C-alpha cells in the first residue's frame, strides 16, 4: 500500500486520482498508524516550507517518517514542496528540513537583465535532462517530454551523487533527485499528462 502523506498542504487528491487510475492501492492519510504500515510513501506538496515542517511535527510524523525512510528504507517520492522538505534547510522561512539528502532549498536568483522574461515563480512546462540515464523512475519516458513546474524555490547541492536530472530556468537547477530509496521531483507528475502517469507507474513498481 502507498500512503500519500497528508500534512495539511494542498493537492493530495490529484495525486491520489492518478494512482487510482493505474489501479494502485493508495490511501491519503495523516494517521501515524496507517503511515507506519505503508510500503511506499509519497510526500506531495504545495505551499510554504516553514508551515509544512511545522505541520509534520504537529501531526507527530517527524520521527515516523525518519523511521520509515532512513531505517526501514521504504521507497519515498517527494513532489515539489515535498522534495524540498527532504533537504537540510530552506531559505523559505529559514528553517530546517527533514535532512534526508545533502542539499538545500534556495530561491530562484534571476539576473536583473532576464527578469522581464524569466519571472518567479517559474510556472510552466520544462524539459528534464537526466544525469542518471538508467533510473527506474524515468523508465519508458521519452527524454523529449516536458513536465509541469510551479515553484519559486529549487534544490541546490554540491553533492552530485543525489542528482537524477536537471532543468534550466536562467541557469541549471536540480529538478529530480535519487538516493537509494529516496526519490523526488521538483515538477508535478500528477499534472504532467501521460509522462507523469508513466513516472507514477515506475514508482509503484519499485
Amino acid at each position, binding site marked *: 500500500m502507498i500512503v500519500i502523506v497528508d500534512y495539511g498542504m494542498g*493537492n493530495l487528491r490529484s495525486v491520489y486520482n492518478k494512482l487510482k487510475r493505474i489501479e494502485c492501492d493508495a490511501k491519503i492519510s495523516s494517521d501515524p498508524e496507517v503511515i507506519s504500515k505503508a510500503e511506499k510513501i509519497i510526500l506531495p506538496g*504545495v505551499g510554504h516550507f516553514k508551515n509544512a515542517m511545522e505541520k509534520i511535527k504537529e501531526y507527530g510524523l517527524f520521527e515516523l517518517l525518519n523511521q520509515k525512510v532512513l531505517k526501514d528504507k521504504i521507497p519515498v517520492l517527494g513532489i515539489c514542496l515535498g522534495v524540498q522538505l527532504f533537504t537540510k534547510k530552506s531559505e523559505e522561512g529559514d528553517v530546517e528540513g527533514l535532512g534526508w539528502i545533502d542539499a538545500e532549498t534556495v530561491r530562484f536568483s534571476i539576473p536583473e537583465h532576464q527578469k522581464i522574461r524569466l519571472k518567479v515563480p517559474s510556472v*510552466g512546462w520544462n524539459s528534464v535532462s537526466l544525469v542518471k540515464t538508467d533510473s527506474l523512475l524515468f523508465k519508458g519516458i521519452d527524454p523529449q517530454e516536458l513536465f509541469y513546474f510551479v515553484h519559486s524555490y529549487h534544490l541546490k547541492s554540491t553533492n552530485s551523487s543525489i542528482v537524477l536530472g536537471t532543468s534550466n530556468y536562467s541557469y541549471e537547477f536540480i529538478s529530480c533527485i535519487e538516493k537509494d530509496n529516496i526519490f523526488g521531483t521538483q515538477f508535478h507528475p500528477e499534472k504532467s499528462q501521460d509522462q507523469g502517469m508513466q513516472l507514477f507507474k515506475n514508482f509503484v513498481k519499485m
Partner: protein
Amino acid sequence: MIRPRVIPILLLKNLGLVKSVRFKNYNYIGDPINAVKIFNDLRADELVFLDIMASKEKRTIQLSFIERVGDECNMPFSVGGGIRTINDIKTILSAGAEKVIINSYAAENPEFIKNAAMEFGSSTIVASIDVKNNFFGKEATYTMGGTKSTGYNPVDFAKLMEEKGAGELIINSIEKDGTMEGYDLDLVKRISEAVTIPVIACGGAGTYEHMANCFKDSFASAVAAGSMFVYHGPRKAVLINYPAKNELLQIFSN
C-alpha cells in the same frame, strides 16, 4: 527557448460553460466536464475556471464540481470565483486545483493576498485584474464581474498584488473580451515591465499571431483565451479546439 503557456479560460454560469463578449452577452457553450475531457485529449497546458456569478451571489464555486474537474483533468487547473477565506482556498486546493484566482476580494482586502500567500505559498495564489476605462476615460481596475470600479490604477494594483505575495497575475481587458481582435498589448506590456511575477494575458485573443505578439512584444509569461478555444469559424460554431504540440512550438518560434 521558453515557450509561454497557452491557457483556455472557461467561464462558468450555473455550472454550465458560457462565453461572454465584453463581460456581457453570455452564450451557453456546453458541459464543462466534457470540455475538460476534450482538453485532456488535446493536451492543453493548463486550464482556468472562473465562476462569473460567485462574487455577486456571495458564494464560492461548488466543491463537488471542482472535485469532478480534478478527477478528470490531466493538467494543472486554477479556480476562481467568490474566494474570501483561507478555508475557501484550502477546500479548493484539496479538491485538486493547483492554484486559486482571487479578484473581487483582492481589491477589497489586499491583506488577504498576503495571508493566503503566507499560508499556501505564493505559487498557489493568482490575482486577477480586470481592466477597462472608467466613465472619465481613465484606465481602472474593476471587480464584481466588471461592474464595480475599485479606484486602483491597474499597474499600481499589479504592483500591490506582487508586494502582498501573489504568485501570478491574470490581466483581463474587459473591452477586448470576446472580440477576438487581439490583446491589449500596451496594458500587458506596462504590467509585465512593472512586476517580476508571471503575467497571464487575457481578453481579445483571436489568432495564434495575437498570442505570439503578446509573448514577444508585451512579455506575457502565458497567454489565455476563451472564444478562440470554444468557437470555430466566422459564424462562431461551438467547437472546442487547441493547437497541437508542434503547432505550439511553431507559433512562438519567430
